[in-house]
């Protein structure tokens, strides 16, 4: 994408939101460098040294990112078509129950869901080891990742589904009438009017999904999915506060960075004039 000129920038973006989008990565980067510098000056125990190797942290970050990306893509592929289907005349009668389930789903604890999925799907994707927690310390387990992604999709589908439905149903009925009145087919109305108008709300749902997924990915270590949760967990087990803190800070920065990307996507993909 070419760099927008000053005038188009002003026209497209609210200057304050624009400022936030520029400032956020700078602040996150600065916090990261400051923390890294501070950590370098600390006297680390040998246990902490071995937990906090760059290789470990980079790999865990990679795992967390891939879990987040995969599950978000999965969520979008399922939730958006489903949301559209549930707002079409034929799907409408399922909309109420679906929203009720989506709302009730808020109370499901992520921890419980992950472990249940592991128990249920463990046999399908690989033999669950007797001692998974120890095995996950630094070991990449394929089945863990798959199960984690499936759990995360289940968990994050609800908010995106809800947003898609809300976004579509709140499109002004008059606009739809106008579209039909001009001779558009139902399909054209959906593609040219309803979806573009619903995009902002749907994008908000996507951002929510990203945030939920990156957070849930922190718990992936519990079922062998890796991620930065591994560092937090080993820090707690080894009573190494610096390791816990490092895991926490890196996870927080990663999540805020992902949220920032979501924010940027929200601005760039939003149709002009909305």
């Amino acid at each position, binding site marked *: 994408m070419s760099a927008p000129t000053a005038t188009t920038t002003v026209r497209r973006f609210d200057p304050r939101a624009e400022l936030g989008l520029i400032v956020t990565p700078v602040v996150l980067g600065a916090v990261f460098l400051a923390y890294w510098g501070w950590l370098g000056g600390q006297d680390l125990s040998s246990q902490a040294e071995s937990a906090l190797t760059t290789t470990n942290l980079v790999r865990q970050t990679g795992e967390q990112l891939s879990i987040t990306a995969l599950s978000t893509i999965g969520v979008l592929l399922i939730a958006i078509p489903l949301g559209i289907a549930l707002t079409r005349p034929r799907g409408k009668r399922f909309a109420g129950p679906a929203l009720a389930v989506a709302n009730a789903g808020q*109370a*499901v604890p992520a921890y419980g869901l992950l472990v249940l999925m592991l128990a249920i799907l463990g046999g399908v994707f690989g033999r669950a080891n007797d001692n998974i*927690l120890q095995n996950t310390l630094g070991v990449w387990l394929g089945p863990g990742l798959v199960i984690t992604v499936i759990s995360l999709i289940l968990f994050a589908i609800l908010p995106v589904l809800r947003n898609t439905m809300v976004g579509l149903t709140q499109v002004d009925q008059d606009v739809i009438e106008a579209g039909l009145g001009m001779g558009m087919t139902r399909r054209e109305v959906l593609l040219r009017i309803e979806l573009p108008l619903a995009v902002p709300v749907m994008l908000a749902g996507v951002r929510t999904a990203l945030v939920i997924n990156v*957070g849930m990915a922190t718990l992936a270590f519990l079922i062998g999915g890796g991620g930065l949760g591994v560092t937090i967990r080993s820090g707690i087990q080894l009573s190494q506060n*610096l390791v816990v803190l490092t895991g926490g800070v890196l996870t927080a920065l990663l999540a805020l960075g992902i949220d920032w990307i979501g924010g940027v996507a929200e601005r760039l993909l939003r149709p002009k004039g909305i």
Partner: protein
Amino acid sequence: MDGVRSLIGFIADNTSGILERTIEHATIVLGVMLVATVFSVVLGIAVQNRGLAKQVSLGTAGVLLTIPSLALFAIFIPLVGIGNRPAQIALFLYAILPILRNTVAGLDAVDPAIVEAAQGMGMGQFQQLVRVRIPLAWPVIIAGVRVSTQLITGVAAIAVLVGGGGLGAYIQRGLTSLGNPFSIERVWTGTLFIILLALVLDAVLGAIGRRTTSPGIR
């Protein structure tokens, strides 16, 4: 079917333990919610009319909610050690945004004509707040409290990962003993009772909300 029967059997055999963990879980949630509600409502009232302060506090609360729960728990361990304490602090920070946002939104939504009428009749700032603005914003504030309660009831499940208590203990025991007898039952028990607790708390808050909302704005 067998699974359900063995789950019911497990629950029946462990009633007192489950009850204890449930009460423990509820105590964590309610304690956090009490503090978070008072804090967020007062903060919301304080910042509602101040543009910058409002942006900053909503922004900060939003950032806190963006941070993964386990990471937030972890960050407080070096400060307060392991146990319920880091969990409570993190849950408190988590609970702020929905209540704060709704308090601000609820107060924002009060018709300016109503506030003008109140002022025009000689109500002072405090009277306007207590007699008019808060009662009118109340349903929205309560809705925020309900959202926060649901949220942290679920998140409190991982308190056990940082050495805290609550129903998450059943999930953890189940996970560490996966493959052994009753492991999956433990996980179901923990999960279901957390959902149940969330639904009960939500229903109670809903009832309180209805009771304390004027019929004129229902």
